[in-house]
């Protein structure tokens, strides 16, 4: 998809975090934006259209940043887009730099970097109402004259103010036709005389060296290469040309020798220039002791109450995800079940019907069932983020997370993964550091999500004795459940540590982070964020999840001959039709006898007459019941046979030697293979394998008994306590959740990471289950 073909002028939107940039972006462009993805990096940029009846422009929303010094490939994208070096965006007509009027000095640092790229810049001073209250007294033309670029004041929450900004943007575009600022940024000479001559000389020499080596680089990029010690540009350029390292070292020493330490040169020069430009604009700090925000912060970061409030908030989020989403999810499952029946009823039996109902409808349901959790989590996170609390959450939890080499920003995504890894992995976007973000993504699926619960409750209910200790206060089953719920998180600690040491080595990234003042969240920004995340999941991850569901359906359906199954199903249906009236009557009678909320149970006299009628009906339907029971038995046996002979079943037999040391037989193997789309599928699969039909749930006593009573050919039980433990350990650690793997591949920017996640988790799960079974077998 080339975004550059249309001739509508493109403008980048840049600014520090917490400047109201996204609020202004959505106010200008509306809710519906496109997302531009960049191959090889995890950055995505939103593109929105700015439109009047006669004019149009495209705004490219760049990630919020404090500086253009790129430390990672993700940060590099921002610089490249601004320089017009990304073909996905093409050359820009200019940049809109949004600054927070209450914190203008630090905000102008990024502005000064952007301006030096040679791009026309429109400076948008946001939160001007608050800045004016804080004592800033300057007009737009005055500030514009001091900084040498057009300036517009703005309150992103105010409609009329946004309209003025829009007008200024179009004026800005007219004043800067694309040809005027020249597309050849490479030819540009030293434009910023603020830097000392020794530095400019070094940049010139470096540019000469690069171009002699056949590397034409825009001058702003060359100075960034010189300034950013061990930054992304240096890493990328040194790789094909290792000698560059020694040139850089020499040139940096040359600048240092002239009295300018290289790391300090840019901030010193820029801040000096900024202070000069805004001299006399003394603004009282907006955040002062005694103010509401300060008092609130005193409580929220308090050494005792801060932690307690944080734990309470996380508890609420977690309960919302875990319990709040459940009714909606159950409703959706029921709705999709009815849809399967409805559509299935309109189609002749056969592979097509099975594909539509079991493959497609079940697959779409399997995607949408995650939506309630995603929407809820991002609703909560967007509110916390927008009001300024998320920075405090990272502040509070940082110490804890540094123990495994991560930062405080990884805490909330990992905690959310206890409900579901999908929104958890999606929430890692707040982590700017690529390595931290990758490690967080890779360990998030280890957290014990709600889909593991049915597996645990089935096996614990069946095999762990219901004894209690300490006078009934502690129950063994709950203890075992708790152990399995924490297993993943405990394993995640060494995994994160090892990943940090091996695949993502390097120094601990700095944790220099702004703690913004508290404010009321903007409903529009919150809604926009929730919509973005939900849409991204459904559209991008959803299609892939659906495709995989269909493939798994095919593996479970073919190559068996389903004619016998279809014949039995048809016969059952016909038989039911013949006896439709008495069956209906019987159901009514049973309902009346049982009573309901609307109708209380009948009186004893009525009851007796109803019972009589029911008994005679049962007599009448005796033949029918017997026939149906026989057919059902045949059907389940046929389905079990079909499953055993399907590709999936063959694979189950094939892997039996591999899973034997875990104490499993081929049936458990099939169950594990079939549960690749989602862990909880194993319950239904075991139901089919143990000839109980597909409708089994974790709480079904029949399934529990079937597991307890199942026997190996030699008569020994298939399931023993070691086997049950081994299965649970496997499910605690394995990556049997296709949707998570799809989201991992999407969020990490490469399917290879999904494969990596699957392989490492499966290996952990296998080894864990092996050790568990072998050790547990010594006792039982």
């Amino acid at each position: 998809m080339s975004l550059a073909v249309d001739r509508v002028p493109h403008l980048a939107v840049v600014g520090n975090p917490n400047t109201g940039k996204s609020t202004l972006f959505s106010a200008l462009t509306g809710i519906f934006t496109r997302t531009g993805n960049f191959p090889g990096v995890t950055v995505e940029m939103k593109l929105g259209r700015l439109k009047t009846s006669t004019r149009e422009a495209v705004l490219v929303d760049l990630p919020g940043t404090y500086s253009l010094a790129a430390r990672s490939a993700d940060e590099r994208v921002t610089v490249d887009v601004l320089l017009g070096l990304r073909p996905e965006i093409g050359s820009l007509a200019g940049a809109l730099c949004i600054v927070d009027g209450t914190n203008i000095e630090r905000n102008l640092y990024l502005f000064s970097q952007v301006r030096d790229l040679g791009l026309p810049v429109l400076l948008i001073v946001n939160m001007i109402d608050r800045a004016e209250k804080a004592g800033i007294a300057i007009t737009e033309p005055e500030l514009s004259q001091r900084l040498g670029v057009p300036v517009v004041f703005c309150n992103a929450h105010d409609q009329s103010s946004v309209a003025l900004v829009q007008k200024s943007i179009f004026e800005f575009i007219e004043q800067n036709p694309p040809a005027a600022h020249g597309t050849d940024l490479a030819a540009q000479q030293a434009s910023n005389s603020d830097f000392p001559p020794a530095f400019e000389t070094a940049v010139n020499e470096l540019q000469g060296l690069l171009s002699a080596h056949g590397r034409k680089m825009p001058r702003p990029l060359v100075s960034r290469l010189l300034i950013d010690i061990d930054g992304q540009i240096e890493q990328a350029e040194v790789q094909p040309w290792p000698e560059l390292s020694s040139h850089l070292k020499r040139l940096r020493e040359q600048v240092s020798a002239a009295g300018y330490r290289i790391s300090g040169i840019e901030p010193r020069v820029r801040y000096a220039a900024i202070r000069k430009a805004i001299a006399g604009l003394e603004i009282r700090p907006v955040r002062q002791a005694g103010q509401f925000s300060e008092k609130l912060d005193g409580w929220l970061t308090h050494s005792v109450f801060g932690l307690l409030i944080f734990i309470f908030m996380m508890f609420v989020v977690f309960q919302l995800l875990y319990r709040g989403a459940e009714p909606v999810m159950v409703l959706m499952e029921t709705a999709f079940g009815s849809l399967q029946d409805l559509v299935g009823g309109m189609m002749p039996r056969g592979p097509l019907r099975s594909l539509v109902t079991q493959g497609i409808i079940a697959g779409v349901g399997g995607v949408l069932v995650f939506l309630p959790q995603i929407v809820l989590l991002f609703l909560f996170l967007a509110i916390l983020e927008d009001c300024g609390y998320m920075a405090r959450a990272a502040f509070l939890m940082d110490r804890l997370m540094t123990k495994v080499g991560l930062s405080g920003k990884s805490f909330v995504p990992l905690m959310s993964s206890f409900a579901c890894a999908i929104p958890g992995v999606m929430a890692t976007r707040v982590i700017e550091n690529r390595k931290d973000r990758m490690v967080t993504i890779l360990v998030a699926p280890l957290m014990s999500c709600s889909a593991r619960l049915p597996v645990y409750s089935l096996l614990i209910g069946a095999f762990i004795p219901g004894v209690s200790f300490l006078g009934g206060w502690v129950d063994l089953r709950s203890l075992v459940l708790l152990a399995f719920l924490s297993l993943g998180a405990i394993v995640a600690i060494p995994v994160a540590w090892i990943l940090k040491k091996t695949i993502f080595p390097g120094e601990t990234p700095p944790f220099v982070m702004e703690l913004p003042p508290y404010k009321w969240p903007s409903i529009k920004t919150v809604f926009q964020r929730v919509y973005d995340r939900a849409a991204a999941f459904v559209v991008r991850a959803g299609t892939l999840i659906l495709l995989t569901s269909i493939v798994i359906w095919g593996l479970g359906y073919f190559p068996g001959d389903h004619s016998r199954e279809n014949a039995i199903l048809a016969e059952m249906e016909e038989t039911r039709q013949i006896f439709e009236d008495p069956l209906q009557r019987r159901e009514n009678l049973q309902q009346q006898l049982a009573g309901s909320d609307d109708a209380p149970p009948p009186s004893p006299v009525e009851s007796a007459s109803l019972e009589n009628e029911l008994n005679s009906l049962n007599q009448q339907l005796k033949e029918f019941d017997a026939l149906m029971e026989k057919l059902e038995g045949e059907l389940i046996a046929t389905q079990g046979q079909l499953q055993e002979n399907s590709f999936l079943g063959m694979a189950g037999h094939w892997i039996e030697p591999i899973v034997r040391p875990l104490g499993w037989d081929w049936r458990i193997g099939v169950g594990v293979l079939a549960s690749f789309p989602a862990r909880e599928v194993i319950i239904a699969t075991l139901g089919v394998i143990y000839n109980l039909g597909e409708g089994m749930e974790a709480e079904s006593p029949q399934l529990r008994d079937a597991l307890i009573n199942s026997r190996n050919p030699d008569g020994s039980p298939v399931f023993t306590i070691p086997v049950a433990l081994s299965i649970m350990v496997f499910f605690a650690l394995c990556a049997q959740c296709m949707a998570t793997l799809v989201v991992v591949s999407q969020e990490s920017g490469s399917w290879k990471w999904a494969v990596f996640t699957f392989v490492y988790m499966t290996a952990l799960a296998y080894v864990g289950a092996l050790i568990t079974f072998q050790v547990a077998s010594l006792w039982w």
Partner: protein
Amino acid sequence: MTATLESLQTGQHARVQDVQGDDSLALRIMEMGLLPGAEIEFIGRAPLGDPLEIRVAGYHLSLRKAEAHRVVIEMI
């Protein structure tokens, strides 16, 4: 011995004298406004002892002890 930002107590004011080191971390610290000459106020520590919160250039900044250790200060 020179005092660093790490050693400040809640409510104390100080002026930055130097940011030690010549690397990307030093650049990052200075980019956020912790330049020689900048006035800072120590707001407090996170409940678990790290990171720290300071006020600089009219806003609040959080940084870890390891980073604060780089920032040489004089009391005012």
